[in-house]
């Protein structure tokens, strides 16, 4: 029964977040990123009741609540930055893959320091590919 459920849900993630980038671009072509952020937050909050925790929110420790809140703040800042990049003329087809390729680099580089994890060879290769992609994706003027 559940064997393919994860696949359908993964496809829904791909479609939702994939379409998201195009909608951000369509919005910020006409309104400021700050205004778009307010509307996006309103839309984002519409689905949140589904995720209302079954237990009491205050059953969680203050530290866990703080980390979750901080996670949302960084998520919001990332969302706003993406829209600002598109508002300044960045193409959705470039800005989205560029940010998606580069942000894990920071995580992979910080993980050995903050979480005492070791860098795997595949991750090192991934960093090289991410930096190469960043250089190539930003080649807007060189070949028009």
């Amino acid at each position, binding site marked *: 029964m*559940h064997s393919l*459920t*994860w696949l359908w*849900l*993964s496809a829904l*993630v791909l479609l*939702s*977040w*994939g*379409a*998201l*980038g*195009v*909608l951000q*671009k*369509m*919005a910020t072509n006409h*309104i400021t990123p700050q*205004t*778009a*952020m307010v509307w*996006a*937050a309103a*839309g*984002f*909050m*519409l*689905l949140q009741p589904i*995720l*209302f*925790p079954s237990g009491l929110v205050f059953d969680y420790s203050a530290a866990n*609540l703080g980390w*979750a*809140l901080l*996670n*949302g*703040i960084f*998520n*919001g*800042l990332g*969302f706003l930055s993406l829209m600002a990049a598109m508002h300044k003329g960045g*193409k*959705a*087809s470039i800005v989205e*893959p*560029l940010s*998606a390729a580069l942000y*894990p680099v920071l995580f992979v580089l910080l993980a050995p320091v903050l979480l005492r994890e070791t860098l795997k060879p*595949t*991750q090192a290769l*991934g*960093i090289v*590919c991410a930096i*190469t*992609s960043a*250089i*190539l*994706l930003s*080649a807007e003027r060189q*070949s028009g």
Partner: protein
Amino acid sequence: MQFISAFGFLLVALVPVVSRKVQFNKDLRANGCALISGVLLGLGGIALFGAYRYGENASVVTAATSLYPFVTVIFAVTFLREKPNKFQLIGLFFAATAILLLSL
């Protein structure tokens, strides 16, 4: 915890409102696009949690779903008529490779 996290997202949206940097206008299409983008952000997050719950291999789910920017590329080329140049096309290949390698 995603429920709590949403309030952090909301906080970022409230800063420009408080500092009066938000200019509401009657552009229904642009405002609607922004609103739906927020809905899709939440929907994708809920679907991702579900995929992790029902999937047997978390790394497969992570690798598969991390390729969402390439759906954006397909949509942007189709609906916005964006045309990445040849360097950017090679860059997209490297970006896909990087995303897959970093998600393993």
